[in-house]
């Protein structure tokens, strides 16, 4: 049985290895590290191979659209079956031309997750072995999970219920 690392220990170890460019915070007991895009692959490889981390399972890779100013975020979640701890990686990307390294060769499970993130957000995964659409039909145009993606039905008939932002203002 291994030894789970706390968020502070994850921060300590990642900073010791990758310098001050890595920010780590504690979110609901999970360590969440924000890493620069050019060191993403390196960090993932370190999480997998370092015996103290030994993250042998990638839970998911997904995307977040934070709007045109703040760009995109790619979130990957790693888990260690040996130490029973979780590490989440976040990478910030610009809204124009978001490109990130693929980690599908390090974690084969990321193959489909990256294809889905690519088709939904228009994020390019450099070095992906099969960069084609996963869920959407091949002729589909646009990236449906981007905030600025127009829903044609809603252009014709606006959403009849309350919108999330407006609800908060009323309170």
């Amino acid at each position, binding site marked *: 049985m291994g030894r789970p690392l706390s968020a502070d220990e994850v921060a300590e170890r990642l900073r010791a290895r990758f310098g001050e460019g890595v920010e780590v915070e504690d979110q609901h007991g999970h360590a969440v590290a924000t890493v620069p895009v050019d060191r993403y692959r390196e960090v993932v490889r370190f999480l997998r191979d370092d015996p103290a981390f030994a993250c042998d399972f990638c839970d998911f890779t997904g995307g977040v659209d934070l709007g045109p100013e703040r760009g995109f975020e790619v979130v990957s979640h790693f888990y260690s079956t040996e130490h029973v701890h979780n590490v989440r990686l976040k990478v910030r990307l610009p809204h124009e031309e978001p490109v990130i390294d693929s980690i599908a060769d390090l974690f084969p499970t990321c193959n489909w997750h990256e294809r889905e993130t690519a088709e939904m957000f228009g994020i390019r995964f450099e070095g992906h072995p099969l960069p084609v659409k996963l*869920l*959407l*039909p091949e002729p*589909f145009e*646009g990236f*449906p999970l981007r905030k600025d993606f127009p*829903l044609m*039905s*809603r252009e014709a008939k606006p959403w009849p219920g309350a919108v999330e932002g407006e609800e908060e203002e009323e309170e």
Partner: protein
Amino acid sequence: MGLITEKTPLAKIQPVRFLLNWGRRYSLWVFNFGLACCSIEFIASSTSKNDFIRLGVIPFAHGPRQADLLVVAGTLTDKMAPVLKRLYDQIPDPKYVISFGSCSNCGGPYWDSYSVTKGVDQIVPVDVYVPGCPPRPEALLHGIVKLQEKIRDEDIQEKFRSGTSAVR
């Protein structure tokens, strides 16, 4: 079915037509195109409590080539739509389609989705629409009875001639 062609208007004779349609409407082999939760209601309709076999609907045809009735139960996406069209084309004439549930009728709760087909009648001709989200098994039984009434009053020669059923 070779007896009922344009050249042999045997089915025009009233008792023959009655007998033919009576036979057809009580032996509907059904192909369940189950796509979502509506499919579970379809299965519930086939089991002992509701039991649509007593209406002559025989479930679980081995494939579309053995089926007379196609029940589209669930959310059809644009990616799945070509498959539905292909299976429908494989069903031999005369064939019937029941659109079961809001999703297959019009897109239902996914009315503004980027990936859901807003109604299977864009892909295949539909005979009976069963509303509900999901509809109760009783609703499917009602839909089947409605379809059987439609078959009872049908002129099969007319059906072939109008091309609503023949492969297009």
